[in-house]
């Protein structure tokens, strides 16, 4: 055989090697194993590719698909004439896709540290932001707003050194009038977890910008618009491949038009500062502590708010973009610094309550006439003091001693006159309940005004029941037996708006609007209309909005109102009227009432004592009022000294006319 020679027999193998049955069995076994292995692999392959192919294909497609929410420009807020109050400016944000950051911890930290250096922020800040969003892996986290062009250029150039970092366009709120109407407008900020829990069903997402206060918050649903959707193809490092494909275009937010008038608002804020300045420069006791206030200007016919000023104020732009805690601290917008800055975030027009003082007297007058315990032309003695039930109640002017009718008592703001009216209320049968409070309640006191702005205080309308509930053995262990009783002094002081009574300037303005419009209680409101901008083939249109609540009749006797209006007219025109010196020289006839309310305040030196809160509320023109103004200066002294001149400034702007001061101010 040929092969013999090529392949000689192995001398070490004694017998020819044969396929033994044993080996055959074992090779057979191996063959079966091989067949089993391949059968398994084929079946698995079949199961994956044929049975589950569709589903896995979808998973693979979703892998590289990234849904990118495109922020919609937020609607602007304009005043009643269309002048902008808040608009947008474009900015550049630096965002991080958390899933695309390096998986390795040290590499991730290295990248974040590098990023922090580029953006001039602290790595701890970035870490904190990312931690807050650690459950939200499907949306980018904005770590810096308004990045500079240099930073953006750097990041774009070195995209490969910063996996997961992207640069996006965004819209930033812009306030052309700086702090003007800050309390009305409010500010926007990133949605918080609590807000998300409450509003998640309405289409809000983590990372959204949402109105945090003011109109921005109340009408967020109009302002925010609908975000669009882009689909972006990315590789496994998260680097985008090509341009994003827009799927749903963003729908810009609607423009909200307010009833506010920019010029009047500016005038009101200016007037407020003027009133405070005036108080500080006067030599009245405690006026050095005048440091806050509010002016409310309403249209008495429908309750639309023309101006709503509060002082001190703040710049909402502090909340634009990345909020710096230190800046908020300096502006008094944090819990720890608010007190030292006299609570600038507080909207004193609706969210702060004060004793109304003499501006309350028309309430007492109307209620008394309605209850037939006072005749308008009944003469009561106006004296320097009034003693009842062992207590002596003083008049603001100790030298007066004459008989007065109601109009004169209102004009000269006679306390003793109203003490007697208050005592008459006390003497009414208790089965009728507290009648003065009942009327006050009907005029909107002790409850929210319903303005489309928040938060709002109800104030406090004290009643015998309230006393009973507030002063119990538990809350007042020493003298609850006495304090829980409604005493004559309570009724007497309530008649001139003192003691426990607390009202907000907005409530007061609402009441004066009722007096001005002939007995209809209006609901103050700020929204005029909402205009949807034209975009993506839809034409701009005015969106239907819920109409403001119609003025409600209070069924006040027209005669009683006429008497009060006469009194308010005389208060600004008669020789001894409390604000005649201010308004007498104004070409348009203004009616209104001063108020000097005593409030116990700790001015910061640890000795709480009473300070005079300066009030003035009124309307003009007297015969057909177009505007109600209510001004309050904290610790401003007498109403005629600070609040009335401030209110006059608002009227001057409104009517476009200047006043000349007439004689010395003789005011409570």
């Amino acid at each position, binding site marked *: 055989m040929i092969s013999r020679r090529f392949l000689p027999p192995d001398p070490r193998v004694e017998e020819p090697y044969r396929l033994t049955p044993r080996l055959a069995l074992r090779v057979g076994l191996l063959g079966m194993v091989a067949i089993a*292995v391949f059968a398994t*692999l084929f079946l698995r392959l079949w199961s994956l590719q044929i049975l589950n192919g569709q589903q896995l294909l979808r998973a693979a497609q979703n892998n590289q698909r990234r849904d990118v929410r495109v922020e919609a420009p937020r609607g602007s807020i304009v005043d009643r004439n269309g002048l902008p109050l808040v608009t947008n400016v474009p900015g550049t944000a630096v965002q991080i896709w958390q899933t695309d950051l390096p998986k390795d911890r040290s590499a991730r930290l290295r990248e974040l540290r590098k990023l922090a250096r580029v953006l001039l922020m602290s790595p701890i800040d970035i870490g904190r932001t990312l931690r807050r969003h650690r459950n939200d892996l499907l949306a980018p986290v904005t770590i810096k707003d308004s990045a500079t062009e240099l930073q953006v250029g750097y990041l774009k150039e070195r995209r490969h050194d910063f996996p997961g970092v992207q640069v996006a366009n965004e819209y930033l709120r812009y306030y052309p009038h700086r702090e003007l109407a800050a309390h009305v407008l409010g500010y926007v900020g990133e949605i918080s977890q609590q807000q998300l829990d409450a509003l998640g069903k309405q289409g809000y997402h983590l990372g959204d910008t949402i109105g945090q206060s003011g109109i921005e918050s109340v009408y967020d649903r109009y302002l925010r618009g609908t975000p669009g959707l882009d689909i972006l193809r990315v590789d496994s490092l998260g680097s985008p*491949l090509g341009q994003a494909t827009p799927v749903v275009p963003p729908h810009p937010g609607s423009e909200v038009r307010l009833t506010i008038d920019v010029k009047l608002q500016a005038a009101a804020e200016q007037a407020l500062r003027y009133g405070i300045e005036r108080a500080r420069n006067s030599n009245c006791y405690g006026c050095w502590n005048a440091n806050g206030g509010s002016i409310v200007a309403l249209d008495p016919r429908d309750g639309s708010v023309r101006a709503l000023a509060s002082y001190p104020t703040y710049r909402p732009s502090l909340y634009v973009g990345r909020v710096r805690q230190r800046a908020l601290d300096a502006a008094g917008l944090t819990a720890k610094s608010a007190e030292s800055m006299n609570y600038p975030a507080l909207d004193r027009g609706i969210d702060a309550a004060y004793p109304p003082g003499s501006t309350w007297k028309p309430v007492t007058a109307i209620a008394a006439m309605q209850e037939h315990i006072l005749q308008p032309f009944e003469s009561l003695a106006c004296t320097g003091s009034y003693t009842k039930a062992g207590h002596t109640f003083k008049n603001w002017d100790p030298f007066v001693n004459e008989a007065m009718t109601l109009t004169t008592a209102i004009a000269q703001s006679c306390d003793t006159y109203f003490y007697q009216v208050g005592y008459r209320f006390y003497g009414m049968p208790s089965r009728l309940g507290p009648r003065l409070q009942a009327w006050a309640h009907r005029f909107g006191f002790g409850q929210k005004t319903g303005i489309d702005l928040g938060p709002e205080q109800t104030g406090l309308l004290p009643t015998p029941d309230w006393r009973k509930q507030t002063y119990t053995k538990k809350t007042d262990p020493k003298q609850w037996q006495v304090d829980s009783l409604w005493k004559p002094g309570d009724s007497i002081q309530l008649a001139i708006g003192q003691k426990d009574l607390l009202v907000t300037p907005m409530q007061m303005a609402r009441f004066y609007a009722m007096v001005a419009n002939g007995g209809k209680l209006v609901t103050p409101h700020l929204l005029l209309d909402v205009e949807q901008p034209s975009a993506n083939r839809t034409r701009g249109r005015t969106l239907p909005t819920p109409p403001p609540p119609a003025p409600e009749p209070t069924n006040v006797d027209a005669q009683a109102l006429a008497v009060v209006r006469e009194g308010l007219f005389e208060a600004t025109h008669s020789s001894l009227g409390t604000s005649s010196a201010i308004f007498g020289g104004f070409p348009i006839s203004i009616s209104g009432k001063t108020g000097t309310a005593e409030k116990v305040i700790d001015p910061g030196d640890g000795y709480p004592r009473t300070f005079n809160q300066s009030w003035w509320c009124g309307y003009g023109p007297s015969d057909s009022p177009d505007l109600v103004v209510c001004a309050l200066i904290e610790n401003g002294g007498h109403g005629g000294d600070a609040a009335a001149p401030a209110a006059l400034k608002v009227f001057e702007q409104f009517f476009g006319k200047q006043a000349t001061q007439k004689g010395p101010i003789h005011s409570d």
Partner: protein
Amino acid sequence: MVDYASRAATRARRRETTDVASFVRRLDWILIGSVAALVAYGLWAIADITRHDVVTNPHYYFTHQVAYAAIGGVCLIAAVLIDPDVYRTRWREIFGGMCFLIAIVLLTGPIRGSKRWLDVGFFKFQPSEFGKVLFVLALAGFLAERSRRLHDPRTTLSVVGLALIPIFLVFLQPDFGSALVYCAAVGAVLLVAGTPWTHIGALAAGAVAIAVLVLGVMPAAGVPVLKKYQEKRLTGFLNPDSDPGGTTYNITQSKNAIGAGQLRGRGPENATQTTLNFLPEHHTDFVFASLAEERGFFGAAFLLMLYLLVVWRGLRIVTLAREPFSAIVAGGLVVALLFQVFVNVGMTMGIAPITGIPLPFVSVGGSSMIANLIAVGLLLSIHVRARTGRR
């Protein structure tokens, strides 16, 4: 006159040509054909799969792989020409050399966290791949020498003892996958050599006990043998949803890739799992998933069929082998190949643990390609010198 000299020369020349012709005829052409098809199919797949991997040179991996296949082909021919008997007598040198090579790798610096490569200039030499072939040769030589004392438990224990040295060295690299391949090869070698079933049974029981100890008992007792990631990889495929971002990320992406291929495949351009890099290691460990994504069930099944063909021819060679040594070598090599295919393909489909075992003839990698072609050369060499009876 008869020119006896020239006649003898002619006869010798004729004999020589018939010898060569016979040699060529006695090659297993089905095996050669299926391996050639595997290599070619693998190269075609790699060309498409790695097109986007190296930006500057889309053919980078392809050209490298072609070069490796060429070198491997030369080695294959050399292996065919060498009589396996040469190895039988020199198993001690082979064993020592193998252990030496693997040990050298351990002493040099680590590459990518593990020490598997030996840098020899143009080429990263991976001894554990060549070790598979040498390992089988050495153990087969030892068993052939002791073929008359197979019933002695000491023989079996010696084999295990010998095998554990390279297994342990490879495990230290750490190349857990190769260590597993070595273990499979030990089993096959013992099986084909004719080790009694009692010994094999006892070894299998011991292996199970060790696995339980390493994976379950020792970590619980506070003595972890495996690194955390190794343990996770081994058990991760049993509950793939446990950690989709971490250990089982690869498996999820791999399954998505395979499934997305469906019946006909997505083609090289639409295979986003591969081209967009969602599937890591898609030119090495997860090459099967990429191939399945691009070529679909047809393409992947075709590849498996080729492997099945190779395994069938290999097992057939075991039965044809001239003497026990050749049979044992053939058995060890075939089972090692089968094991690698199963673990690699099974891993990509989520039915086998994650180990860094390349797919023979397809995964990019010179050592694996050359070593596997040498193994085929050995099989062919055995086949050429096989008993003639059953042909």
